[in-house]
Every structure is written in structure tokens, then in C-alpha cells.
């Protein structure tokens, strides 16, 4: 396998009343080894459920309706969607780990940090002794810059701050040296100065290890700071994908342009902020044409009728927009 992870034609549905509603529609993603890959989009665009689907952790009533997720594990290639429960458990936490948006609620409140770190080890190394586990746990806490590891091990979640908890979550996620880390908005709930600490830490750890990262966020700034490659999600689809520098310098899709203009106009010279008009259409209420058509300033007749395909407009740069097709053809 060339890639660490290959998602093909992934579709996720939910139930609204008795109707099946698509939340994610034919997503393809390929993650290279030792890469940090950003996924950016607004709430409800399908970025977080993609991560949950990779680990088989979609909450009820969400389901994978179609597609494949292939993963290059240590013992050969695996189709994650076809694994048995037991096989999936062996992948979780051992080869693919995840950290979450709310560190305050991601640790079980009634157990100590020590117990929860030991758990992560013992699920995958049943024979490991207490002494060895403790040594590894302390080492990991040290790596994530927890000031007093010994004391922290004996603490409960409510005794620690958000920043510390997110460090601990990272320590737990990396404790088995996974090949892939899914980071679902890991800094959204944190203050800026703490966000800076965590992003700094993640960049450091990435340098030291072979772990690939999928960074899911709504913040283009976080992408710019941490990622090499990025995919922009809108209404359950990828609308643009490229190397980070390429995306920021040769932005192609009107939605991505809008997002960038909205953030860069903040604090800029002009008084009036740039806004993308309208709101994100919720899942299942998509028109058959381009899903961004309603809000697009350059919307054409064709855009309302027909769905544009995701095409390569420059080497490694993909975009789902008819305007780009025209430029390529011309």
C-alpha cells in the first residue's frame, strides 16, 4: 500500500424520523505515511463523523452506508469496515488512536489518570506488569510536559485543568505508539495560550515519532500552523484538497476563498467584514446541483442543475467547481 489510509466512496447516513439522511456523501481521502493531514469545515460538514467512522465509533443512529477504509497496519493491509469487533478493538488505541474536542469530558470522571493510562496499555498487552506500566505512563506524561507526573497519575479528571487533561489524552493516545492519530478539534475548547501549548507539543511529538496525524478543525489558522496537506469539507463532501501552501496561495474553490477572506478580513483594513451569505444547508437538504450554489457569488445556471466533480486542477490540487473546469479546458 502506498498510503497509510485510503478512504474510498465513504457514505454515512443517519435516521431522521423514519427517513435515511446522508451526512457524508462519497468521500475519498488518502493519507500518506508520516504526514499531518488537515480536515477543515464548519459544523455539520461531516469532518468529525469521518474520523469516528475510521475507528468504527459512529454514535447511534449513524451508519456507514457504503464505501471502504483501507489501512496499512503493522501486520498487513486491513479493510477497517470489514473487521470483526475483536479485530477492530485491536486496531483502536494500538494502531489508530483518537483525541477529542472536550478534554474535560474525555476522561472517565470516576477513575484516576493512572488507571486510565494502564487500561490503554493492558487492553493491548494483557501480560504487562504494574511496574512496567507505571514506568511507561510516567515516561509518557514526562513527554507531554506534565509538570508533576507522579502526582498527576493519582489525580482525577476534575482535579486537573483543560490543558493538562488534553496533554494526558495525547499521552494516552500515543502510549502504544500508533501509526495514526485522529485529532478531532483538539484545541477548540481551550484558550489561545493553551492552544498554542498543545499545538506546539503536537508538532514536537510529530517530529519525534512516525505517527501520522489527521487534524480535524474549523480553524484555518490551526491548519496553517500544523498541517502539510489539507481537505476542505462542505455539506458532506470534499470541495477542495491540496498541499497546505498551495491551498493558501492558489485557493481555487469559492467556498475556501470565502472562508479565507472571512478570517483575513478580521483586523484588516476595511471596516466591513467579508461574509459568505446564507447558512450551511443541513444534512439531507441538499440540492442536486453544487451544494454551495445557493451561497456562491459566482453561481451559474449549470451549478444548480449538475453536481461538479472533484478534479485535479494542478498537480496534487483537487477542486469541485465548474469554474475551474473552464479554466483547465481553456
Amino acid at each position: 500500500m502506498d498510503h497509510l489510509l485510503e478512504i474510498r466512496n465513504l457514505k454515512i447516513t443517519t435516521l431522521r424520523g423514519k427517513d435515511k439522511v446522508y451526512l457524508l456523501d462519497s468521500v475519498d481521502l488518502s493519507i500518506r505515511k508520516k504526514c499531518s493531514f488537515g480536515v477543515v469545515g464548519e459544523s455539520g460538514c461531516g469532518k468529525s463523523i469521518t474520523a469516528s467512522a475510521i475507528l468504527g465509533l459512529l454514535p447511534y443512529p449513524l451508519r456507514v452506508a457504503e464505501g471502504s477504509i483501507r489501512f496499512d497496519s503493522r501486520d498487513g493491509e486491513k479493510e477497517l469496515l470489514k473487521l470483526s469487533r475483536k479485530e477492530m478493538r485491536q486496531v483502536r488505541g494500538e494502531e489508530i488512536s483518537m483525541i477529542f474536542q472536550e478534554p474535560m469530558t474525555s476522561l472517565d470522571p470516576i477513575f484516576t489518570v493512572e488507571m486510565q493510562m494502564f487500561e490503554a496499555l493492558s487492553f493491548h498487552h494483557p501480560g504487562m506488569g504494574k511496574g512496567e506500566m507505571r514506568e511507561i505512563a510516567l515516561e509518557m506524561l514526562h513527554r507531554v510536559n506534565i509538570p508533576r507526573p507522579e502526582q498527576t497519575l493519582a489525580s482525577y479528571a476534575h482535579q486537573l485543568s483543560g490543558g493538562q487533561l488534553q496533554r494526558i489524552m495525547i499521552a494516552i493516545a500515543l502510549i502504544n505508539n500508533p501509526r495514526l492519530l485522529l485529532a478531532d478539534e483538539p484545541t477548540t475548547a481551550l484558550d489561545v495560550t493553551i492552544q498554542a501549548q498543545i499545538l506546539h507539543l503536537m508538532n514536537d511529538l510529530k517530529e519525534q515519532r512516525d505517527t501520522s496525524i489527521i487534524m480535524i478543525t474549523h480553524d484555518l489558522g490551526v491548519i496553517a500552523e500544523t498541517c502539510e496537506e489539507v481537505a476542505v469539507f462542505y455539506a458532506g463532501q470534499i470541495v477542495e484538497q491540496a498541499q497546505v501552501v498551495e491551498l493558501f496561495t492558489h485557493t481555487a474553490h469559492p467556498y475556501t476563498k470565502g472562508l479565507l477572506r472571512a478570517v483575513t478580513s478580521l483586523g484588516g483594513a476595511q471596516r466591513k467584514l467579508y461574509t459568505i451569505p446564507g447558512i450551511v444547508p443541513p444534512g439531507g437538504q441538499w440540492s442536486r446541483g453544487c451544494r454551495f450554489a445557493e451561497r456562491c457569488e459566482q453561481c451559474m445556471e449549470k451549478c444548480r442543475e449538475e453536481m461538479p466533480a472533484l478534479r485535479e486542477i494542478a498537480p496534487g490540487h483537487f477542486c469541485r467547481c465548474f469554474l475551474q473546469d473552464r479554466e483547465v479546458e481553456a
Partner: protein
Amino acid sequence: MKRKDRPVAGRALPGNESILRQLWRDPMGRAGMIGVGLVILMALLAPWIARFDVAKMNSKAKLAAPGAEFWFGTDHFGRDVFSRIVYGARVSLEVGIVAVGIAAGFGYLLGMIAGFFEGRTETLIMMVMDVIFAFPSILLALFIVSALGTSILNTMIAIGIVNIPVFTRTVRASVKTVKSTDYIANARSIGLKKMKILFRHVTPNVLAPFTVQATLALSGAILTEASMSFLGLGIQPPNPSWGSMLSDARKYMERAPWLVLFPALFIILTILSFNILGDSLRDVLDPKLKL
């Protein structure tokens, strides 16, 4: 986009869409409404439905089996069981409604006061509630009835008193929740007077859990009345009560099992209907509490 007119988020709240219609849409809610509706109809139309005088004894037809004349058979005095069941529904509902009325009225008032004014008043009210709460409800009701004397009114009062604390607690808890919401702070920030905040903003938002509580308390009150009558300390003969009918029937169980079956069936179905209705009502009014 045919869904465009649907609400963006959350369920419709009362005030803009009929609660009854929402209940009807839910199969469970529909079952509860039908059940409760039938019991109410039976109680209201008792004089027309009942075929015999409930107290009229008939020495020729003691312990008659169910048949064309006596649909549900007769008891050991020869009284028509069907007629007694029909009038029993009336007694059950009367006791239930008045008792819950007493409990809800006092509970609402006390809960509002305790929740809104806090401090010593609250401590005192809640202490009294704790005292009432410290007795098992059936025992307390029996105790009160034995002090006041057995009669329908005293049964109602006893069951009412027993149920006050539940309402006080529910109302107080929701007043406190509502009070800490941003929209109450908002009402204060636009300069609304305290009393107006209480009536205009707090009351409507407390009503939902209150209504749910009332429905569930109604089934509880009917149950308590039946239990008390079963023990002989509730509704006194010759008034028909499902509880005392069941209790009397035990002596003739072997010969006349219908005497046990029909009252038991009606008690169970009535309480079941109210519980189902209460559950569905909670789902509609207060989706957060959904089981």
C-alpha cells in the same frame, strides 16, 4: 425543498403546536389517550352505562357467573359487578383528581415560594416536606385517614397531603433551573420587575414538568386509593371502589374468580393508561427528560 418550513432545531414546544396532536402522533401517546379517554367516558356516563343500582342486593342472584343479564357476574350480595365497576371508575377518578388537585395546588405554591425566594423560607418549607416524605406514602395516608375518619373526602385529603412533597420538589427544582437560565437574566437586564419575571417567564417554563408530574401523580393517587380501600380504610361500603371489590372478592375467589378478574383488570388498565400518557407527555413537553 419541501422540508423548508420545518423547524430548524428541536421539537415544537407547547404554545404553538397542539400538544394533543403531538401525543396522538406517537403510538404510545395515542394508546394512553384512548385508555384515559375511555375511563373518563365511563365515569362521566356511569348513570347511563350502568345497568343496575350499585347498592341493590339481589338474594336470588348471588355470585352469578357473567352472562347476558349480569355481564360481569354478581357478587356475594347479588350486586351487579359491571355496574359497580362503572361507578368505581367514577370514584377512582374523583378521588384521584381531587387528591392531585390538593397536592398540586399546595405543591405548586410552596415550590414556587421555596424556589424563588430561597433563604430561610426555603429551608423551612423543604424541612416540612422532608418530614412528610419520611413516611411511606400508603402508611401516611392510612395514618391520616384513621385520624380524620374514613370517608371519601378524608381519603382525598390524605392522598393529597401525601403527594404534596413530590410537587413541591418538582416545582422548586424547575424554578431553580429556570431561574439560572440566561433568559431570566435577560428578563432582568431589560428591566422587568421581579414579580413579573416570576409570572411571565418562570411559570410557563415550569408548567411542562408540572403537567407531567400531575399525570403520573394521578395514576399514583388512584393506586393509593385502591390500596387503602383494599385494606378497608378507604372508600366505605356501599360505595363501589375497585380496591374494596377486589378485597371482598378474595373470599369467593374459588367459586367466583370473575369477582377478582374484573376489578383487577380495570385497576391495571387505568393505571397503565395514565402511566403511558404521562410518559408520552414527558417526551413531548420535556424532551430532555426522555427515558
